[in-house]
């Protein structure tokens, strides 16, 4: 058992899978350039040295020395041009031909640059071919608002839950990060992994980051998709929240506990597949449902969950479903404005308090 950050838990999962399975490889922009960051958030730092990479490093003569270009196929960590369509397509094609790419986007916002490869290609190849081919690829996408302005801030998971053929996960503890990353790499389908920038706990410090250091068992284990985690048990209100938002909900729940309001907190962990049963069982007990995500309100995954609950279990509810989300605006830069749009522990507490009293 070791205590590690989520960034290190991801690294540990990827490294161990690469050691176990020669078809696993990493690909992305700045994936592991010596002296660089290892992706934007240190997850892949050091893997190039262990598994071989195409790199340019300062040589002894003071000039740049290029390595790993002559026998390119020996690299298992590939530093790419800034070409997202290329990265997406190479993942799809190599996966069809028996490899298991683990790609890194630096910032999930760049997923839009490869949207065709994800939605028209990766997601549909198995279906269109009637199962002749399949696409076991992992696309890692850092997400969340972090004082970087509108194009490096989005919570993108809801775009992808609408695409048949893609699995969408959002681990948020070190334990889950390792176990779900291993499961993602072993999954025979395309998996998009949303990684919240404020939860990495990597060496790159972020304003407002939470300490998500956690226990990670030694050796291999997987955390299956489609099984939610009950982060806190309670009896008055059910809050379903993912990534950073369930940590905020935990803070809110501690405050509410003092007021005698007992909150149950569910972290779905994976959005496709989604564990509706755990949510339905919880509202049977509490009769109150609140959904919190950093993603925008309109069409967010919470809308899907709310409609599912209304369709299947409305009689278990004692009050209207409450949804707390980022408003339908781009994410502003000013830290003050960003704090306004991203749901806070205080706002979660306030909304839950109101709901509990209904």
């Amino acid at each position, binding site marked *: 058992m070791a205590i590690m950050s989520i960034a290190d838990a991801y690294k540990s999962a990827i490294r161990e899978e690469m050691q176990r399975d020669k078809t696993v*490889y990493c690909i992305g922009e700045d994936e592991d350039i010596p002296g660089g960051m290892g992706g934007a958030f240190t997850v892949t730092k050091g893997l190039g040295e262990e598994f071989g990479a195409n790199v340019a490093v300062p040589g002894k003569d003071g000039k740049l020395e290029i390595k790993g*270009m002559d026998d*390119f*196929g*020996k690299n*298992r960590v590939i530093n*790419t*041009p800034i*070409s*997202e*369509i*290329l990265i*997406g*397509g*190479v*993942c*799809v*094609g*190599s*996966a*069809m*031909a*028996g*490899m298991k*790419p683990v790609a890194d986007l630096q910032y999930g916002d760049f997923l839009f640059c490869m949207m*065709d*490869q994800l939605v*028209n*290609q990766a997601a549909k*190849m*198995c*279906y*269109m*071919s*009637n*199962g*002749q*081919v*399949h696409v*076991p690829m992992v696309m890692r996408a850092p997400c969340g608002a972090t004082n970087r302005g509108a194009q490096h801030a989005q919570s993108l998971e809801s775009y992808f839950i609408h695409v*048949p*053929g893609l*699995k969408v996960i959002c681990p948020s503890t070190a334990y889950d990060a390792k176990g779900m990353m291993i499961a993602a790499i072993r999954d*025979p*389908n395309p998996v998009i992994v949303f990684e919240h920038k404020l939860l990495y706990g990597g060496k790159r410090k972020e304003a407002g980051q939470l300490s998500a250091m956690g226990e990670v068992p030694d050796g291999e284990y997987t955390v299956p998709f489609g099984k939610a985690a009950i982060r806190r048990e309670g009896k008055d209100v059910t809050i379903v929240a993912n990534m950073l938002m369930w940590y905020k909900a935990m803070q809110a729940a501690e405050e509410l506990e003092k007021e005698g309001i007992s909150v149950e907190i569910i972290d779905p962990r994976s959005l496709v597949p989604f564990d509706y049963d755990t949510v339905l069982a919880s509202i049977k007990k509490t009769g109150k449902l609140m959904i919190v995500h950093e993603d925008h309100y309109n069409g967010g995954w919470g809308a899907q969950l709310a409609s599912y609950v209304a369709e299947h279990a409305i009689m278990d509810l004692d009050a209207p479903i409450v949804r707390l989300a980022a408003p339908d605006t781009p994410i502003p830069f000013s830290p003050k404005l960003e704090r306004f749009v991203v749901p806070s522990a205080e706002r979660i507490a306030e909304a839950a308090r109101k709901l509990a009293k209904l």
Partner: protein
Amino acid sequence: MAVFPAKEKAIGMYRTMYKIRKYEESIYYLFLEGIMPGTIHQSTGEEASAVGMLYDLRKDDWMASTHRPAGHDIAKGISVKAMMCEMFGAEEGCCGGHGGAMHTGDISVGAMTANAIVGGNLPIAAGAALAFKMQGKDNVVVCFFGDGATNEGSYHETMNAAGLWKLPVVYVCENNQYSANTSIHLTCCKENPAADRAECYGIPSEVVDGNDVLAVNEAATRAIARARRGEGPTILELKTYRHGGHSRNDACGYRPDAEEEEWIGRRDPVKNFRQVILDHGAATEEELAALEAEVEAEIDEAVEYAKNAKLPDDESALKNVFWEEK
């Protein structure tokens, strides 16, 4: 002038070219009859490209096609029966009716699922080529695309990396001179959209008469050998012409008569190669007529079979969204 090959090879190439021609013709008539669903993007007139490129390709090499895939797929080895069944959306279609005219494929013969997003197959072919390289295999990928694809971002992202990483892939531009309805003169800053821009990516290129199957085959042999030796990609630009419209309802009102007369009348790849075979004495008129009758019978049989083939169960629409362990 291309060297005339061994008799057996010449006849084999002609047989496949004729098969593609007759297959596409029968599809066209089935549409006119109104009994075939969907739309069509026909490869009639581009048979020399498909056959010249793929005739010598190994079965375990891969081929990536486009929204106009029938010629490529037949040349790579998918049976006309499986193709025709797919056109009718039948269970025995090469993709079980999940694919359709623009997504045919059969990976057991190296035909990747055809791609109907212009330029979408380019980085995927690069990925498959990268996989072969990483696995230490000597396989290559032949990737077809049209002149229109050379103006997609995916094209430039892919060519840059394919050249840089020396991937074992042959990129084949079937320049039929129109991006759907729009002349290449309105869409590209260069006369040869693929070849003239290849140097930027450090990729050697050739411009080839795409209606001369022997010229295409010679260029293919060079490019495939280079890729197999690990020396990297080649861009071949094959000048060719669609005999029909871009798709089902396109009457080609934008093409000048003289141009059509030149390409369809005088430069028909199937008719011209037939004459070359006769000129070289590789077959007699009677022998070719017999071969043609055989091919026509095969196609007629496929059509009759496909018309009556079992349609898939409705529940099969829900299968293979995710991969199911066989």
